[in-house]
């Protein structure tokens, strides 16, 4: 396992696609979530329609609300980027046929994939940390430029939020890794994963949330459960977009842990059993 871990670390670190993906994620947070919205609220406050005035809405970008802003971004763009990262990390091995190169070295198949999943998991934790830092920094810059005052959430809230962030992103990464192994094609894995994320989870979750049969199914989906956890970190202003959660935060956490285990164990089982090469 240590051998695989060291090899995987070298591959992950030197792959530019990974750095580009994470760069896009961080840039999205800074440029779209913070900078663009702040500029609109600051320079064109009357363009904002809705019950909450721009002057109040601006507080959503201040440090007091950086945790819900972060978790909100993590549930959309963060989920997509980490799903792609997971899918690339496993599916590329099939696309390049490098899976056969590494499987004819010394480690067992379980050690090979175990090492890969560990590195992918550790990378996800580091990305979560970077996201937390960049979001906090962006909120600090906004409140400073705005010459306003705000309070930071307590350490306890920050730690809990970080735990939630890591758990949610790990689930999306492991889903990506799983579909990468299942489909053995980066394009199919990323396409299928994103369709699931944005059509099944997002679209069904918003359009048919109250339909009884769909509602029962939605209660088991990762995105809905992640949303329930995120809802326990509310913004300090009136949130017109808030929806009723289908499950409790506690159940959401348990469900996500179960999904993480299912994706990880399924990946290991398929990787262990399946032939490499041939038709």
């Amino acid at each position, binding site marked *: 396992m240590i*051998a695989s871990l060291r090899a995987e670390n*070298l591959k992950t670190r030197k792959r530019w696609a990974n750095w580009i993906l994470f760069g896009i994620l961080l840039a999205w947070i800074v440029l779209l979530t913070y900078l663009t919205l702040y500029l609109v609220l600051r320079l064109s406050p009357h363009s904002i329609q809705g019950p909450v005035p721009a002057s109040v809405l601006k507080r959503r970008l201040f440090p007091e609300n950086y945790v819900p802003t972060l978790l909100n971004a993590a549930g959309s763009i963060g989920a997509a980027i980490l799903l792609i990262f997971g899918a690339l990390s496993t599916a590329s091995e099939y696309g390049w*046929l*490098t899976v056969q190169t*590494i499987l004819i070295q*010394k480690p067992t198949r379980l050690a*090979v994939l175990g090492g890969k999943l560990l590195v992918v998991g550790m990378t996800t934790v580091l990305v979560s940390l970077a996201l937390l830092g960049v979001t906090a920094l962006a909120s600090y810059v906004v409140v400073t430029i705005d010459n306003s005052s705000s309070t930071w959430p307590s350490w306890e809230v920050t730690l809990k939020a970080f735990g939630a962030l890591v758990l949610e992103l790990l689930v999306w990464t492991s889903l990506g890794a799983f579909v990468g192994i299942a489909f053995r094609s980066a394009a199919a894995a990323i396409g299928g994963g994103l369709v699931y994320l944005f059509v099944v989870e997002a679209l069904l979750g918003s359009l048919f949330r109250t339909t009884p049969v769909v509602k029962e199914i939605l209660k088991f989906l990762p995105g809905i459960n992640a949303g329930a956890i995120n809802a326990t970190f509310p913004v300090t202003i009136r949130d017109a977009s808030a929806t009723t959660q289908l499950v409790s935060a506690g159940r959401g956490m348990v469900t996500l842990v179960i999904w993480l285990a299912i994706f990880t164990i399924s990946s290991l089982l398929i990787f262990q059993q399946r*032939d*490499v090469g041939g*038709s």
Partner: protein
Amino acid sequence: MAQALAVETHGLSKRYSTGVMAVNDLSLLVKTGEVYGFLGPNGAGKTTTLRMLSGLLHPTSGTAIVAGAAPGSPASLARVGAMVETPAFYPYLSGRDNLRVVARYASVSTSRIDPVLKQVDLTDRAGYKFRTYSTGMKQRLGVAAALLKDPDLLILDEPTSGLDPQGTVEMRALIADLRREGRTVLLSSHLLNEVELTCDRVGVIAKGQLVAEGTVDELRARSGGRTLLIRATPLEQARRLLESLLKPDQVKVVDDALVLSVDPSQAASINRRLVSDGVDVSELRVSEQSLEAVFLELTEPPHVGPAQPGEGHT
């Protein structure tokens, strides 16, 4: 390597989920220290067999022992260096970094990287990205990766594929060096000349079955061995005379010459008989059956069948 046999398979078979029987009841014995050529036309089952021996494919039935352990087990893989099908590496890494990755997986010191790069003559391009490599360079990097573990047994799938003539010669020299170092090499090829020049023994596979096994000379002998080639005038008179002297199926006309499947020691008496009957003999010589002819004979559909007990394994 302590074992007398580097590779041993018994009744090895692989049926894919598509229903294709790629390898059928294959029993192979590769002796320690020899270069064994696994010869067969495209689609014969060579790569499938090598994949099973490397642990990449699970056999449908049968058993195999590779370097003293089950294929794909850490004990086996620790002593086996392999390059199966195409050399597959990370395109965004340099040749050297790719070998670093392989060394880490194999728990091999990175100090092995420079010697193997030198051995395959890739030192100058080691810092370039793999995606920029030519086919021949990729092939050489694949061999370097296989050598990294300092293995007792090398499994090389079409090692000269994509190499230019100079590279092919160098690869043959490398294989000869490996044999001198006491390593066992199991290589697959569909190139008869390559097998003839590099291998101690050859196994011929067709449609997933081993149809012959032995040294190149043994295979030639099995398939008729040497023949007599005669150029004579008039040809038809000579053919009729020889058919009356020998069995008709021992006489063939190929490119205006008579090819006789007889013991070459009969050459003098046949010549005397032809001349005494008024036939002019302009050429009479012993002709070696080419390995190509043997190969075609063994792998053509009517002749495909499993090796008979005792005739194949030596």
